[in-house]
Structures are given as structure tokens and as C-alpha cells.
């Protein structure tokens, strides 16, 4: 039985392996790469929202920290991409740890507002520090060079990002089925029950918040290198909402749902491109439809329908 946990992982690995040979051109490969990057961020966010039951409406702020740490430190200070990436992750982690204690004293709407505020602050800072960040216009980012190897072209990026996603999926599946992960899910299920069996609830909330912030930051750095340009949009409220929507549509507390949610919602704007300015409305309508008819999200709903829990 524990083996079957990884069936989905194997399916995804196979799909990822054959996909580039089926895609007609680089436009689709680029779309696939953006889907995979989003899937990684959403996976980290789902650990926080879906598994631990703690909402964050400011998660794009952490993506922004990674993206701008990479952009600013490599461009203005000549840091190596790896060092810049790690500095961003460290910064995101420290910030998350600092705000976690007061933030997680809050529940429900208050927690949502506090994280939203945090995301907005980060977004405003990158918008205003124009001398460093280029302000609202954004700034270019050099290619990702690790040691003497420079990553270039959609093909290379695709394999790298696929590898990151598969590793993240594997680690997440392990985590939620480890003692740490069970404690995390337990505090979501019943905070008081988890406390009386010895779970230090504050510590676990902090740990998962820091982990998902660090991961978001790392993926922000990766995005910045891949796109070659960053704008403040990466950190803004709409992006945070987009990420939460991916979690919810795919399915809270569903590892594979994170991937499905990210894939669908990354593809959606392309599919809706014909709507000329009505994309946002269509986006909202689809979200409403999903919430009304599939409040648990796609993957859990379908899994229940086909008799697998």
C-alpha cells in the first residue's frame, strides 16, 4: 500500500519525459515550463494552506523576494546566481520566521488580512525602490549560470524544472506521511487534540510557513532567471490570489491537486486570450463555478468519485 502513494509521481514523470517530443514548438514548451514552476510554488503553498490549514494571501511576496534578490544581487552587486538565490531564500525564511509568531496567533479572516498586508508591503517596496529594482518597469536578470554551466534555451530549462518538480513532489509525499507531516495535518484537524499528544503547534506552524516561504523564494529566483526579467507584478496581490486559487481548484491537501491546479490555471489565460480583456472575469467565473460544484477541489472530488480516498 505505501508504494501506491507514488503511482501518481511515476505517471507525472512519464508525462514529463514524453511531453517535449509531442509539443509542436517552443511556445508550448515555454507554457509547460511556467506551469511546472507554478506547480512547485503551489505545492509549497498547499503544504501550508491545505495540510496545515493556515491561509496565506501574501505568498507572492516571498516569490518576489527571491526574484528580486536574484535580479538585484546579480546585476548590481555581481553576486553569483547561486549565492543570490540562497540569500533570497534566507531573507524570505528569516522574514517568515519573524512574522510567524504574531501572525499565527490570528485565525481565519485575521490571518488572511495579516498575510495579505505582508505581501503588499513587499510588493510596495520593490515598486518604490526604483534605483535598485527599476520600479514599476522592472529590471533584466542575467542567465542562470551554475559554476561554468549556463542554462539556456527552453529545452534545458524544461528538464531542469521538471527535475525540480519531481523532487519536490517526492519530498512532499514523504513529508506529509512522516511524523512531522502527520503532526501538521493533525493540528489542522484538531488543534487541541494535537496539543495534548505533544505537538508544539506554534513551532509547527512556524516551520511550515518558513519552509513554504523559502521554497516560494527559490522558485521566484528560478522564474527570474528563466524569464530574464522581473517586474513588481511577481510580488503583487493578484499573483498571491492566483496561487491560492491554484491550490483551491486543484484541491486543498492534495499533492497532485497542486500540479493539476497550477497546470489548469496557467493554461487558462492562454485559452481565454480570445476574450480580449474579459479574461479576469472569466477567471473569476470559473473559480466561482469550481467552488460551488467542487468545494474540495478537482483532484479530491474526482478521487472520491472514482472510489479512491
Amino acid at each position: 500500500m505505501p508504494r501506491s502513494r507514488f503511482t501518481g509521481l511515476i505517471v507525472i514523470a512519464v508525462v514529463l519525459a514524453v511531453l517535449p517530443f509531442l509539443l509542436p514548438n517552443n511556445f508550448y514548451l515555454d507554457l509547460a515550463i511556467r506551469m511546472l514552476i507554478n506547480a512547485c510554488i503551489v505545492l509549497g503553498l498547499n503544504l501550508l494552506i491545505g495540510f496545515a490549514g493556515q491561509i496565506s494571501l501574501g505568498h507572492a511576496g516571498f516569490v518576489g523576494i527571491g526574484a528580486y534578490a536574484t535580479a538585484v544581487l546579480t546585476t548590481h552587486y555581481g553576486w553569483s546566481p547561486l549565492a543570490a538565490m540562497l540569500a533570497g531564500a534566507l531573507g524570505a525564511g528569516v522574514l517568515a520566521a519573524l512574522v510567524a509568531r504574531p501572525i499565527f496567533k490570528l485565525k481565519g479572516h485575521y490571518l488572511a488580512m495579516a498575510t495579505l498586508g505582508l505581501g503588499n508591503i513587499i510588493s510596495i517596496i520593490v515598486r518604490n525602490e526604483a534605483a535598485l529594482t527599476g520600479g514599476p518597469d522592472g529590471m533584466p536578470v542575467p542567465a542562470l549560470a551554475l559554476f561554468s554551466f549556463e542554462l539556456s534555451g527552453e529545452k534545458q530549462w524544461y528538464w531542469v524544472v521538471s527535475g525540480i518538480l519531481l523532487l519536490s513532489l517526492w519530498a512532499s509525499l514523504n513529508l506529509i506521511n512522516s511524523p512531522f507531516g502527520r503532526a501538521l495535518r493533525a493540528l489542522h484537524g484538531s488543534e487541541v487534540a494535537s496539543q495534548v499528544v505533544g505537538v508544539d503547534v506554534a513551532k509547527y506552524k512556524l516551520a511550515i510557513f518558513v519552509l513554504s516561504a523559502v521554497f516560494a523564494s527559490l522558485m521566484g529566483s528560478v522564474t527570474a532567471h528563466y524569464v530574464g526579467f522581473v517586474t513588481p507584478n511577481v510580488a503583487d496581490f493578484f499573483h498571491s490570489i492566483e496561487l491560492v486559487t491554484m491550490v483551491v481548484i486543484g484541491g486543498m491537501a492534495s499533492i497532485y491537486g497542486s500540479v493539476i491546479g497550477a497546470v489548469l490555471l496557467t493554461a487558462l489565460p492562454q485559452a481565454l486570450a480570445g476574450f480580449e480583456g474579459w479574461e479576469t472575469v472569466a477567471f473569476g467565473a470559473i473559480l466561482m463555478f469550481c467552488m460551488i460544484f467542487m468545494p474540495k477541489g478537482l483532484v479530491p472530488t474526482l478521487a472520491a468519485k472514482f472510489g479512491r480516498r
Partner: protein
Amino acid sequence: MALLEVSNLTKIFGGVRAVQNVSFAVDAGIVYSVIGPNGAGKTTLFNLITGIYVPSEGQIRLDGRDIAGVAPHELARFGMARTFQNLQVCMNMTALENVMVGAHLRLDRNLFKGALRFPSIARRDAVLREEAAELMRLVGLEAFTDAHADAMPYGALKRLEIARALAAQPRVLFLDEPAAGLNPKETGEVDILVRKVADSGVTVVLVEHDMKMVMNISDQILVLDYGRKLAEGTAAEVRRNPDVIAAYLGTHQ
């Protein structure tokens, strides 16, 4: 020295004195029951001892150590476990996982080792799965080892909480109305289970309305009424106590 010593314990909610100046001691290895009408303060007393509430006044000593106001997750380290009158089962997990969570403090909880599935973690989890299944058999839930918690009936969930508490391998176990809402057959099973647990050396502190069970099982009984201690003694002593007859047993018979 008694395992648990409560002295002059008081808890005030706004104007309500839920627990007033209550003192008692529980020796290791016994079944100690707390009875009293609804609203007498039994659950509040449990919540004070297990760290959910901070006392307004008074001391609580475990092994002579003052534990009043210590957080629940710290108390778990000292060998305290409990169940809840209003169910506190994690409905987002399977029945077996709920029991496994009970063993939290006995496991390596390292995040990174867990994420990388270190062989030591995988091995320990495999053993724990067996232990948890065994505990589910002990409480009579062998039919539910593969069930999701949200698919289980009420009576089964009550016993699932007992299994989870036992997974912690506690020294003292607090059971808040474990037989409430159960049918007579299930109540009988819980009765036998509590005896088994007590016989294995675990000190049991029990709140229960089923008088047959309480009178049969308890070494000592504490009677609460309006937050105050009304009487304390063996089943025979309590049954004979005129105050108790007047205030509680009389009205419930």
C-alpha cells in the same frame, strides 16, 4: 506522594465560578472517577489539569512538580494523555493515522529526515503502523483500520480517541465521558477496556455519567457540584453520603 495533587483549584469564567477551591489527590495506579451533574465543572477540571485552561487560583502537582499553567504539549512529555467529551478526532486523516499521531513524542519528528524519507523514519513508521493497528484492535476497532476518520460512526470515534491517547503510552490517562452516546453493548466494552488499561498500570482519571460503570470500576470517586467538591471516597462511601444523595444521585435515579 500522590501522582497527582490538586489543591485549592479555582477557575472563573467572567462571572461563572466553574471550579471552586477544589482539592484532591490521585495515587498512581488507581481508577479515580469524577462525577457530578452537567455543568458541575468536570470538563473544566480536566481542562485545567491538562493545560488547556490556566487556573485562576490553586496548584496542580504531578510527581510533586507544579504544572499549573504549563502548556498541553509540555504536559504530554510528563506522561499525560486525554480524550475529549466533545470529539476531537482529526477528520482530515485516516483512523490509523489518528492513532499514529498519539505516538508523536516517541518519534523522530525531523522535517528534513521526513521529507527525504530516511530509512530510520520509514522503518519506525512501519512498526508504528503495526502498533497503531494493535491499539485499534484493543479498543475494538479492528473493522476500521483502513477507514478514513470521517467515515466512522460516533461510537467508533469515541474509542478511536482512547486508542490515540494510549498510543502516547501515558502514565496518567484522563477520559472525559468515554461512554457518552454509546449503546449499552459499547458501554460494556468501554468498561472492560478501561479496566484493561488500569490493570496495565496506567492511572485513569474518569468522568462518566454511567453510574454502573463508575461504581464498579472506581477505586476513588470525587463528587463535584456547582464547581465545588461535595464528597470524596470509595464507591460505597460516596453512595452513602447524604449530600451526594441529595444533590446528585437522588435527582438522577
